[in-house]
């Protein structure tokens, strides 16, 4: 594949890892970032480089989504590594970490290896597999973390399901330390959540849909924080959606517990009021919560309690979604709608550009220990050119994902990725 030889002139360069926010040029030669920020040589001096006037648009590290479901192997009718990564680069992402709830489950080196191989052959961006915590995601025996790590897994998680057995979670947090793996917790007490279809509260009462109390998440967040403290393990809480979870994590961080966490655009943008029409596109787990939870999540993003915005991109076909609300599958796609919603946080004053962009670049890269999320000269170029002012209406019909279960279809938004470079190669536009 052709390595980029490119000068991006007059860009606003934002590199949250270094706290860099400057206007200047970016020079990429043979796919390597040559200079970042200083004035580029004139085009006459380097006729081998293509010149592009960025016109003040933003050059940022390619985004990193540490929580996606690519559905391959096993559910290729929903998404494949090819289509999922195409969606990723179209959305401004240069790397995704894919959850292990595939068929078969990614609980062995062979499956991790398969995913990495497919990604190299057909992927548009980097793919970092997340291995299972327990064999078969059954919550009984630990998966082989060492072999998973050797094959390329960057974290372990039973995402989609919680680890209900506290002893197993303790062992996971201990054993993972031998292989320098972060344990990603899908925090949900299945007994408390039992049979629930949406957030428990005034809206679930009006709609007559069984509720999932906020406590079903927070109870497990509290448990996992205690276990992280007990074991000294590295814990990451996935898709934080409740006020109590934010409070518990904030408190644990202040006491030095090794914990990080993420939320998703739908938890800081939508509430359970969206379910009034019984449209399964809004059905997701954890469920869309109350306004109060939404505000607490935004506060957690503002004060740094929440380190990462991940999409929890969860593709489903109409078979799973175009059905009675009760029987519909949980999950929303997010790779091609996240960028304008994350930029909206900046416009809403939740944080400055560097603080917010850190949550989709260097922070997830640091948590996963992957060489992404920065714009250092001398490294392979992974960058996204963003037009922060472009206004348009989200149209799921134009997505590169196979799935259409996007709750933001039809939303007027602002901000779009117009160029995504991964490993020195222009991967978007295609």
């Amino acid at each position: 594949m052709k390595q980029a030889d490119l000068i991006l002139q007059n860009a606003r360069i934002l590199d949250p890892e270094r706290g860099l926010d400057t206007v200047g040029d970016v020079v990429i030669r043979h796919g390597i970032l040559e200079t970042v920020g200083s004035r580029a040589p004139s085009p006459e001096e380097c006729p081998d480089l293509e010149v592009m006037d960025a016109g003040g648009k933003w050059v940022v590290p390619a985004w990193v989504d540490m929580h996606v479901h690519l559905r391959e192997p096993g559910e290729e009718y929903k998404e494949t590594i090819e289509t999922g990564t195409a969606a990723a680069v179209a959305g401004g992402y240069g790397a995704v970490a894919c959850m292990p709830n595939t068929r078969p489950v990614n609980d062995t080196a062979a499956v991790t290896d398969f995913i990495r191989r497919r990604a190299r052959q057909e992927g548009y961006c980097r793919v970092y597999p997340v291995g299972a915590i327990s064999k078969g995601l059954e919550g009984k025996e630990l998966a082989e973390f060492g072999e998973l790590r050797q094959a390329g897994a960057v974290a372990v998680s039973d995402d989609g399901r919680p680890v209900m057995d506290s002893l197993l979670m303790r062992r996971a947090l201990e054993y993972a330390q031998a292989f320098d793996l972060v344990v990603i917790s899908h925090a949900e007490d299945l007994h408390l959540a039992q049979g629930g279809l949406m957030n428990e509260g005034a809206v679930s009462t009006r709609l007559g849909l069984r509720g999932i109390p906020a406590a079903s998440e927070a109870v497990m967040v509290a448990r996992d924080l205690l276990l992280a403290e007990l074991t000294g393990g590295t814990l990451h809480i996935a898709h934080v959606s409740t006020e109590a979870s934010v409070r518990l994590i904030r408190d644990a961080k202040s006491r030095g517990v090794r914990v990080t966490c993420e939320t998703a655009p739908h938890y800081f943008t939508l509430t359970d009021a969206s379910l009034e029409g019984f449209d399964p596109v809004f059905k997701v787990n954890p469920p869309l919560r109350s306004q109060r939870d939404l505000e607490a999540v935004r506060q957690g993003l503002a004060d740094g309690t929440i380190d990462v915005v991940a999409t929890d991109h969860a593709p489903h076909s109409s078979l799973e979604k175009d059905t009675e609300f009760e029987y519909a599958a949980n999950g929303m796609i997010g790779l091609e709608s996240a960028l304008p919603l994350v930029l909206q946080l900046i416009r809403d004053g939740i944080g400055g550009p560097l603080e917010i962009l850190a949550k989709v670049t260097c922070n997830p890269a640091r948590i996963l220990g992957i060489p992404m999320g920065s714009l250092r000269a001398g490294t392979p170029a992974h960058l996204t050119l963003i037009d922060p002012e472009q206004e348009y209406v989200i149209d799921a019909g134009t997505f590169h994902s196979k799935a259409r279960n996007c709750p933001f279809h039809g939303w007027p938004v602002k901000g779009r990725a117009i160029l995504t470079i991964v490993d020195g190669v222009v991967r978007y536009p295609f």
Partner: protein
Amino acid sequence: MAFVRKDLLGIRDLSSEEIQTILDTAESLREINLREIKKVPTLRGKTVVHLFYEPSTRTRTSFDVAAKRLSADTYSIATSTSSMVKGETFLDTIKNLEAMGPDVFVIRHSASGTPHRIAARTSASVINAGDGMHEHPSQALLDMLTIRQKRGRLEGLNVLIVGDIAHSRVARSNIWGLTKMGAHVTLCAPPTLLPAEAASLPVRVSHQLDTVLGAADVIMVLRLQKERQGQGLLPSLREYAVFYGLDRKKLEKARDDVLIMHPGPMNRGVEISPDVADGPHSVILDQVANGVAVRMALLYLLVHREVPPVRG
């Protein structure tokens, strides 16, 4: 006066004027049920499809009688399982039925919101005949009609709803309807049978039946499903009957002219004792009779989108 609605999905969407119109229409159509030949040609040539995904002889029969008295053609499709089970998608089912050219779908489904999903996909009118734990609008309308007949009004009355409110679509529809019509609603149940954030509803809430019984003009007793015990919501049906079952002894604290209602089917001896169910305060059979009148009114109003002419 026009009645401009394609569907009747819930009471929560209705204005008090619309509820008034439905009750008045039901009252005027009730006269047909007293005739020797209980049939008028007003829906001749119209097709009503009963789509019952949950067994319910009572409600289906009531809708069917209502449709036939208005001379509509009716078809019943009863299926106890979700369409998913058959491998046919939910929308395939609707598209197939739509091809029959029905004017009205009457839908009962165990999953809340299903009539709404269908209504959005069909040009036919949809009547919600009970969806999950969400709403059962025709039941609430017949309850309100019954109270209005017995008391002459709804405004200002104290209505006490006792029992498994959390799982009850009848309770939800009645809460919206009664409060829109100016009645005061009190819910009484153990906390495990109350919905989350019950205080967000326009009601008062009590856990002690004895303390709220005396003020009630109407007591609505809800069916208690036996599986609530197995679900851990109650220690035993026996204890439930002791504290929340309506029996003659508890009734001594109630007003002399109190009305006792029950949406049926009853668990006699659990939520209501047989002597109370069959006693002088009970209007349970009036409820059944009014069910047909209310459902005739709904079919009439949704098909014609106007109220029937006043009979001279």
